[in-house]
């Protein structure tokens, strides 16, 4: 009995030791090989557009630089993805280059501590100057633009507009008047897809051009805890719009449990006329529904003043290099390629762009989708503003739940705006921002 006791104990100890010591030196040692070739790991989010764009960039780059191999790796998007990026950066386990949002989300990565400073680096030579602020912190630049900008506003079915002889509205009232006519024609005027809660935010976030047109200092004051959504009428308007559309019954039946894909399908098929959405949702549809490229147009969410009409733009994401990389030169080479017209050309062959590039010398192709062309007009005429999340680090996490509640008539718009102010306060405090 004693023997078996001891044997078993020894076996367990051996097992534990083996388990604890094996594979000890595993984590991501340098990947430089004897022949001077280098492998770069490239972490991207898993949306179809990003994966395709990343693959096109990597393939074109590897063709031009045969000694550098790029392996893409995917991660989920959304807040799950935010956490993965933060976890991997903070535990020193980030890939050599990675694709991540620009603007407020980048600020939460502590770039000064975790990312390679690219300020003044030749990598940036083709990047448009007015893009740099969204990939910067405290005046230092950390990334290059990945893919194209996109518009956040109303995607509309041009066939429906043609049929009912409607014009693109320049004021909110005109928009609602169009909705009345569309409803009379038996088509759902506005598509709501609140199962995917994030889609409910567009009336608020996409309205920022109008907020900024009315109160030019809003972003600054908002960041400094001086301006609030609830007390700035122009900012409350977005919540009001959500409520109006619901109150008039302009959304399709079952908006509460519809998904984004279903919404896009309704729009492309003309069963719904307007969809407050990001233009980047269109390109992935073109393969299966070609009319998505031609029948769907884009206009900015209209405000009160027809003379000050414009659109809100979402800047492209960035590609960044973590300080922990062991292949800095190769990584910079790749970033320089991404931020060059050749890089843009490579992307064009794989993914129809959803909006303008932020790279000097890169142009939309002739056969770009209609929504991207519509957006380009706003850009060329200088009638755009970046969304609030690109000009302020403050963004509350619960906006999408609040906008669902307001847009479903559960919460009055003023109360929704006030709730959001509270939500924002919590975030600012958690980030330790000055003035909160």
């Amino acid at each position, binding site marked *: *009995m004693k023997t*078996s*006791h001891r044997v*078993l*104990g020894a076996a367990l100890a051996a097992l534990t030791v083996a*388990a*604890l*010591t*094996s*594979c*000890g*030196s*595993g*984590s*991501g040692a340098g990947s430089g090989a004897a022949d001077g070739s280098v492998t770069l790991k490239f972490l991207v*989010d*898993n*949306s*179809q*557009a990003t994966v395709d764009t990343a693959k096109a960039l990597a393939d074109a780059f590897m063709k031009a630089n045969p000694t550098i191999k790029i*392996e893409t*790796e*995917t*991660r*989920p*998007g*959304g807040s*799950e*993805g935010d956490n*993965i990026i933060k*976890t*991997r950066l*903070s*535990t020193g*386990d980030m890939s050599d280059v990675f694709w991540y949002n620009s603007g407020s989300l980048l600020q939460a990565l502590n770039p000064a501590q975790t990312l390679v400073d690219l300020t003044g680096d030749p990598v940036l030579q083709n990047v448009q100057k007015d893009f740099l602020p969204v990939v910067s912190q405290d005046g230092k630049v950390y990334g290059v633009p990945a893919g194209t900008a996109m518009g956040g506003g109303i995607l509309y079915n041009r066939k429906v507009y043609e049929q009912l002889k409607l014009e693109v509205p320049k004021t909110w009232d005109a928009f609602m008047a169009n909705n009345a006519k569309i409803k009379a024609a038996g088509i759902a005027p506005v598509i709501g897809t609140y199962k995917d809660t*994030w889609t409910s935010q567009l009336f608020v976030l996409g309205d920022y051009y109008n907020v900024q047109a009315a109160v030019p200092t809003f972003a600054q004051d908002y960041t400094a805890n001086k301006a609030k959504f609830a007390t700035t009428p122009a900012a409350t308007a977005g919540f009001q719009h959500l409520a109006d559309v619901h109150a008039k019954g302009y959304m399709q039946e079952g908006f509460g449990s519809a*998904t*984004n*894909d*279903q919404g896009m*399908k309704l729009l492309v098929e003309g069963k719904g006329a307007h969809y407050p959405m*990001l233009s*980047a*949702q269109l390109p*992935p549809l073109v393969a*299966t*529904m070609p009319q998505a490229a031609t029948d769907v147009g884009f206009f900015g969410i209209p405000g009160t003043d027809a003379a000050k009409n414009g659109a809100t733009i979402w800047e492209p994401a960035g590609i960044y290099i973590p300080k922990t990389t062991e292949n800095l030169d190769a990584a910079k080479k790749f970033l320089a390629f991404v931020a060059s017209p050749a890089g843009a050309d490579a992307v064009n062959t794989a993914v129809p762009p959803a909006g303008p590039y932020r790279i000097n010398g890169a142009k939309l192709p002739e056969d770009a989708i209609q929504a991207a062309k519509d957006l380009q007009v706003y850009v060329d005429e200088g009638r755009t503003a970046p969304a609030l999340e690109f000009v302020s680090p403050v963004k509350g996490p619960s906006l999408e739940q609040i906008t669902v509640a307001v847009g479903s008539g559960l919460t009055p718009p003023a109360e929704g705006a006030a709730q959001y102010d509270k939500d924002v306060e919590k975030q600012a405090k958690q980030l330790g921002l000055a003035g909160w």
Partner: protein
Amino acid sequence: MRAVRRLGAEAVALVLATVIFLVPFALMLLTAVKDQTQAVDLDFAWPTSWPVVENFLAVIEARDYILLRAYVNSTIITVASVTLLVIFGAMAAFVLQRRPGKVARLADFLVLSGLIIPPAVVPTIWLLQALGLFKTLPGMILAEVAFHLSFAMLLFRAFIAAIPRELDEAAQIDGCSGFRLFFRVIFPLLRPVTITVILVSSVNIFNDFVNPLYLLPGDENATVQVTLYNFQSQYNTQWNLLFMDIVLITIPPLILFVFFNRKIVAGMTAGAIKG
């Protein structure tokens, strides 16, 4: 007459169970064989086309056959961690149930805490890094053991309580105690609950999704649940491929269950416990 009634009851049970439990599965299967445009509707409409083979291949081939690697990884993780879990858990539950006192009260509390507290992701990574186990299968296996230990111990303890102590006494008289008493006498009697623990924790570990996502990053380390992300992203989902993937990764545990189901019956007819 009785036989007829019995047959009727069986038929009713069969139909009810099938409707309640299999209709949702039919919906999954149906969506898995539709084309992408139609799959978006997420309804019971009959498929307009049948791209079964295409969808199947698309899922298998996606991202360089990542699904096949994921099967291998998930199988290794599941088998290894469930083995450790059953042995470690049953041993500990045995002392816990048989030897009350301060230690048992502490252990009892820790078992409950293990059920209540969700694992702290980032500190766990630090710790695994310190041990050199981060991003390795052994690290993932130990983590799964740690996270599921409470569940296993709770079940084992409850069922060990049902084994009469007289049995221990008898074994002790034969000179059998400690590890030998446990492995020779008690463990074999725990067969029904052991099978349950194996079954349930394999399913949970095979289907674990959050822990591998953080503790085992990297495409070469993918596990089956993480492959769902190949087809579902924040903005776009390829529903047909997503469901094909779901169907494919649900099949291995189903086979496991059908296998163990027989074992349960066998265990029963063997009449494991004599009072």
